[in-house]
């Protein structure tokens, strides 16, 4: 696969004339409240660095993620000497922040509403406070957030979140809800994170500590015995309240071209939980995903991706990997594969999409996913493959149909809403 990716990389967009020029100055324009040095510090490129392909987009994305600006524009002009260049950043600030509301849908949680509000740029230092609330058929969540892009005047971004959620979960898949069994999973806690761009510019490191009180309740045993009832017994034993305390290292890179845009998405997260930290269990969890979206020619995109993960130790059942939510497959119903979750999982997919303007994209896909779990020294493995076609409407609603499975899956995120920039 990597060989193929390498060949695809050679078909990259032509380099711009400015590439390779050394940045001699960073000019910030349009800022009224935000201090220019704040903007300079958060940029992934510094004075003296050579300009590389994609740097302008990376700078734009970094500034847009601060949620401080209505408009961000990054450009480059010739410097005072040959081979040098000046990076020009133009921003138009939000006066207050953002209020938003939208409709949402997911296979796991059903339809719902979401609302969020942010106050941006406290004291002109880029600090942000915000709140979010969501109500879905099977999930309710709320959260408060404080973020500082330059913690203690260093190049470290800091954030703190207080959040809670209440989810209604099935134990097995079955059309009759009285048969499949269920439980409630409630989480309330906080997270502290500190992060910085890596020397590779496009990548970001985040070190995060999280503490959560987990409540498992309203357990209903499945009406039919499945898998020797190991999973149902496990949930029954976990009923009650327990604490989860984790330390996580997160490394990620996102393409700058938006959803289904050209580029590479990379994400890796290592989470450690220890009783020393006050947690209910000792375990180490690693999850990674790598996607490459390649424009082959106008309107045609080939996407190749893989997700994989493993857990070592004794994780609580809700921390295992399930093929739903973020791991939802395109042509296979959620949790049909490995409903008990796995300590090892993988998902691999290839997708060929053709743009149909202005509707979105049609695509063909092939995917495979599986989970593995060890119970009493025996491994329980489950895997499946789907081949099918799909339609991506307005880059928001992803409808796919597995031809060999006869399953229709709708994957979508926020598909309608309104946002007030204040």
């Amino acid at each position, binding site marked *: 696969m990597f060989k193929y990716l390498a060949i695809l990389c050679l078909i990259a967009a032509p380099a711009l*004339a*400015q590439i390779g020029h050394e940045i001699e100055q960073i000019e910030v*324009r*349009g800022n009224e409240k935000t201090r220019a040095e704040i903007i300079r510090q958060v940029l992934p490129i510094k004075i003296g660095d050579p300009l590389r392909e994609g740097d302008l987009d990376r700078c734009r994305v970094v500034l847009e993620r601060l949620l401080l600006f*209505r*408009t*961000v*524009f990054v*450009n*480059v*002009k*010739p410097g005072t000497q040959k081979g040098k260049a000046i990076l*020009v*950043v*133009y921003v*138009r600030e*939000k*006066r207050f922040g953002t209020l938003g509301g*939208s409709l949402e849908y997911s296979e796991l949680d059903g339809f719902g509403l979401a609302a969020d509000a942010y106050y941006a740029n406290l004291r002109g230092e880029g600090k942000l406070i915000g709140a979010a609330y969501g109500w879905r058929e099977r999930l309710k969540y709320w959260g408060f957030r404080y973020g500082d892009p330059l913690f203690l005047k260093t190049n470290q971004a800091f954030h703190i979140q207080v959040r809670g959620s209440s989810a209604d979960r099935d134990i097995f898949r079955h059309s009759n809800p009285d048969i499949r069994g269920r439980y409630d999973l409630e989480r309330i806690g906080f997270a502290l994170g500190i992060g910085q761009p890596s020397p590779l510019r496009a990548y970001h490191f985040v070190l995060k500590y999280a503490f959560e009180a987990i409540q498992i309740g309203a357990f209903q045993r499945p009406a039919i015995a499945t898998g020797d009832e190991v999973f149902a017994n496990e949930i029954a034993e976990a009923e009650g309240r327990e604490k989860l305390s984790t330390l996580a290292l997160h490394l990620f890179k996102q393409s700058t071209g938006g959803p289904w845009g050209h580029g590479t998405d990379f994400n890796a997260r290592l989470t450690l939980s220890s009783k020393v930290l006050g947690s209910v269990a000792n375990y180490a969890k690693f999850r990674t995903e790598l996607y490459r979206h390649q424009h082959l020619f106008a309107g045609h995109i080939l996407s190749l991706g893989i997700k994989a993960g493993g857990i070592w130790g004794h994780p609580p059942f809700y921390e295992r990997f399930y093929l739903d939510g973020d791991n939802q497959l395109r042509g296979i119903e959620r949790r049909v594969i490995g409903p008990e979750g796995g300590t090892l999982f993988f998902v691999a997919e290839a997708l060929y999409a053709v743009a149909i*303007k*202005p509707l979105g994209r049609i695509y063909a896909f092939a995917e495979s996913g599986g989970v593995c779990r060890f119970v009493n020294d025996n491994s329980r493995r489950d895997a499946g493959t789907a081949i099918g076609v799909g339609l991506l*409407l*307005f880059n*928001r*609603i992803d409808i796919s149909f597995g031809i060999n499975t006869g399953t229709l899956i709708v994957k979508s995120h*926020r*598909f*309608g*809403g*309104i*946002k*007030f*920039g204040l």
Partner: protein
Amino acid sequence: MARFIHIPMLVACMFAPFRPVFAQHISKDSLYIYVQSDTLRVDATIASLFSKRAIDAIESGMTTSIVVQFRLRTGRGDQVGQRGLTTRLEHDIWEGEYRLIRQAAQADTLITPRFEDIRRGCSRLQGLDLAGLPLPNVPLTLQMRIDVNPISPEQQERTRRWLKILEKGSYLEFFYSLDSPPSSEWVDVIKFRPSALPHLLEK
């Protein structure tokens, strides 16, 4: 022989308190309203067309849309004529070149390395037709509205996409952002009576 009448005028651009303070106005000496070929026309020079924010955006290389609109209203508020001029300004900061494209029936383009040429090109309005004759012989008020909006490539793309989607009448993509600044307000430029205007003969 052509004969002009010099009409003193004053424009006070009053924007809402939360808006940036612009000083766009038409100087006293530069406004001429006249009749030519059964058409009411205006010559004018706009002073301080570009705010500091607009200049910042232009000097960063953002494409900027400049819309100048005039309208004529009677004392009762009836509108008897409206005309506008839309211009797009592009700036290639790597090449150091400005490109001013006037979007009209007869489009024309000015390419120059000097911003002063651009400022002059945008500010000077010559023979802009306001309304066809006859006009009611009552006092009319000439009003002006100017919008100078920097547009990033992402905004341009979003706007294009929006226009397409609105044409198709889709509500699924109803992801509306109210981030865009409101249009500027109409301000009074001058009051006059059409019968008192000079007639400019065609050559």
